[in-house]
């Protein structure tokens, strides 16, 4: 299992050139002290590309944490997020990223992420990401997402949609499924 992970990682390294997130406009200025991007962990997306958290700088974005094998709440949160994204001004929505982080280090692969993306008809510019257990637990801790892996491989986890500004600071969060979003959208628009 560990070997397979290494193998994937080394394959990923070779495709780094295609990384589409390197618009480091202000890459030389230090990140704000509350920026999630300070974590610096490395993830792989559904195309098998390597994505450093720091690479996400420069674009405001929605962030959710889930696992793709989940067939209860996770599809709902993704539908919620799709609706939210289409509510934005189309001229601006192209400037907003979406990062879906998986909790399931043990089972998630670029393939399972890609399958989920196809099955849920997600826009192609959404990034679905997986990484090591340490990277997952630090990201979840930084976001305040609580989760627990159950024996059967399922997870209990917080359902929250976050909105991060260009520097990776959390500027808005929406907790729960199908909860009102007027206040959240107000904060999002303010930080586009």
């Amino acid at each position, binding site marked *: 299992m560990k070997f397979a992970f290494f193998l994937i990682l080394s394959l990923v390294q070779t495709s780094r050139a295609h990384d589409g997130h390197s618009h480091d406009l202000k890459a030389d200025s230090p990140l704000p002290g*509350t920026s999630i991007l300070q974590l610096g962990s490395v993830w792989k997306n559904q195309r098998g590309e390597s994505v450093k958290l720091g690479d996400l700088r420069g674009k405001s974005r929605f962030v959710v944490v889930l696992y793709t094998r989940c067939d209860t*709440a996770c599809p709902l949160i993704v539908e919620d997020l799709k609706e939210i994204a289409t509510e934005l001004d189309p001229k601006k929505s192209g400037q907003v990223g979406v990062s879906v982080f998986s909790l399931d280090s043990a089972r998630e692969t670029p393939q399972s992420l890609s399958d989920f993306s196809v099955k849920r008809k997600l826009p192609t510019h959404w990034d679905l990401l997986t990484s090591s257990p340490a990277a997952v637990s630090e990201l979840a801790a930084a976001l305040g997402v609580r989760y627990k892996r*159950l024996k059967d491989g399922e997870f209990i*986890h917080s*359902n929250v949609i976050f909105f991060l500004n260009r520097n990776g600071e959390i500027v808005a969060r929406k907790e729960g499924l199908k909860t009102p979003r007027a206040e959240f959208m107000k904060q999002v628009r303010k930080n586009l």
Partner: protein
Amino acid sequence: MKAAAVFLLFVFPLAVPAAEVKLPKSVYSPLFRDPGEADSVVGPLLVDKTPVTNQEFLAFVTAFPQFSKSKIQPLFADGGYLAHWLGDAAFAKGEARFPVTHVSWFAARRYCESRGKRLPTIAEWEVASDARSSRNEAKIMAWYGRPGARLRDVGAEPANKFGLTDAHGLIWEWVDNFSESIMSGDSRGGSSTESLFCGGAALKAKDPKMYATFMRFAFRSSLNARYTSVNLGFRCVRDMDGGGE
């Protein structure tokens, strides 16, 4: 051949640094269970005999200044980080062997990493601290009833059955997976547990008499990774060779 093996078994414990004790392979039976959650096996494991002290933590922040009181970023700790220290490299005289407190999960985790160790899991901590013994249960309840109890040197009390000290009655301790403690009943904003948590976390206490265990669980469920407090410290553990994941 056999004699040599026996000899090695006797010699091996001497090779373990004095500051660690061995937790043999044990079964952890959670007080609160999610659907399908069973007992789990923990150990064998090397556990720090005492919580990490101010003196030990000073060596860490000297080596990793990004975790010093003045340099730590707010993502990694709240404003109370090392609040009892007098500066980046100083604490009150006489507190060198007090357990370090006012440390966040991020800092505790990085400290253990820097020692080639890690934070214990909930299961490991609960077993190693022998929390379920009735003697400890009574001790814990007495401590919980004395808010603001003063700190003291670590190791100043008899060790528990595994050789650990100070697990109860001195400080709370960070565990790596504190965020697995998910309490229901938080209905702020009208959202139900079902809505907040995929899978729904139904709490079913195995034994309602275990108040102390319940309180630890409730405390952990109130934590976030940046949080620091006057009576929250930590100790590290280390997987034994061949006993990893």
